[in-house]
């Protein structure tokens, strides 16, 4: 079971925050296939958000094939996002650390690194689509 939190100042719609937190938990292996997600009532009692927001987040997860509702029981995780890629994390992290060191040596601060990463990620995604 996971606990949700809502950051009202983030500017990110609450339902996106819920979806993101579930995916993050799936990526990190905190949630696994078969795990139950908190019920709508539990979520709203915990973080005081609109029940429709929770339903919408769960529908989105179902739509993406990550969770499924079982009538009268609740919503359950049907697929993990960690899977095979988890094994590759370690090597990628080492590469990233090397790259970060190089970036700092070149005089980039954290904000510049983040900006460079985000624009490159977006550009890469754009190329992938085109």
């Amino acid at each position, binding site marked *: 079971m996971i606990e949700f939190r*809502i950051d*009202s100042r983030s*500017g990110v719609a609450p339902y996106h925050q819920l979806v993101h937190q579930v995916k993050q938990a799936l990526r990190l292996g905190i949630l696994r296939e078969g795990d139950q997600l908190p019920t709508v009532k539990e979520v*709203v009692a*915990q973080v005081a958000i609109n029940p429709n927001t929770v339903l919408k987040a769960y529908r989105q997860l179902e739509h993406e094939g990550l969770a499924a509702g079982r009538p009268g029981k609740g919503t359950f995780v049907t697929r993990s996002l960690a899977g095979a890629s988890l094994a590759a994390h370690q090597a990628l992290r080492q590469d990233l650390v090397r790259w970060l060191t190089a970036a700092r040596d070149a005089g980039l601060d954290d904000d510049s690194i983040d900006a460079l990463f985000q624009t490159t990620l977006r550009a890469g995604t754009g190329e992938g689509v085109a």
Partner: protein
Amino acid sequence: MTAAVKTHQLSKRYRRGRWALLDCTLTLPAGKVVGLVGVNGAGKTTLLHLAVGLLRPTAGTISVFGEPPAARATQLARIGLVAQDAPLYPTLTVADHLRLGRSLNPGWDHGTAAARIDRLGLDADQPAGRLSGGQRAQIALTLAVAKRPDVLVLDEPVASLDPLARREFLQGLMEAVAARKLTVVLSSHLLSDIERVCDHLVVLADGRVRVAGDVEDLLATHKVLCGPRRDPRRLPADQHVVQASHTDRQTTLLVRTDRPILDPAWTVTEINLEDLVLAYMAAPSTPAERPAVARNGVQVGR
């Protein structure tokens, strides 16, 4: 979409006073949590009191599930109210309030009410006058929910509460919404709370409805455009200007449109709920004061 509350040109003028509410035409969908926002004196409490039948319209109509709010006793039973500052009888105990609720309301759900008081850790023999503001608000909410209304109206329920009591109150309210089909209409100045709990929004200013709609739709159809200075009147016809500001070189606009912004001169950013509400609250009140906007046909005062 079923309408929980429907108004048509609803207007209210107090004795020898100004119009507290004018030409207010609204449809509040059933099953939603509707947030009502506006500065003090905008007409929020007047609208809520008309909805629960405490006031009668000077002109226009209001109906709750198709009938006037105070049409008859069965209709009043469908409407719950948590009034400002959660008024209770100070000398009566918590248990007395529940007993009163039970004998006055035909659809009273005593089990849920008692369980809720228990869960809140309240002493049932305590007089209401000795409770904290947060506890009184929780009791008022318990009483209103136990009545099992179809529409629950709350007039600034959390305004006087500390942050913890406020959060606990909203948790209780959202639990009630999750537990059964319930339409909620609540007024608040706290936009962060509105953003958390509401999925429909009504902005009132000077007794008129400035904007109303599903939060998601409102956020999706409003865009902030920033670019070189230009005349907002020369925008595509489907872009309605809500707010415009200029420096000698730059123009920033808040526009409402269903279509994507194609003009590459604009830097387009999304808007958050708080900025959206503030823009509508600040917009001038009469169409005459805003020729550029009137020509673009923005909806105000409806």
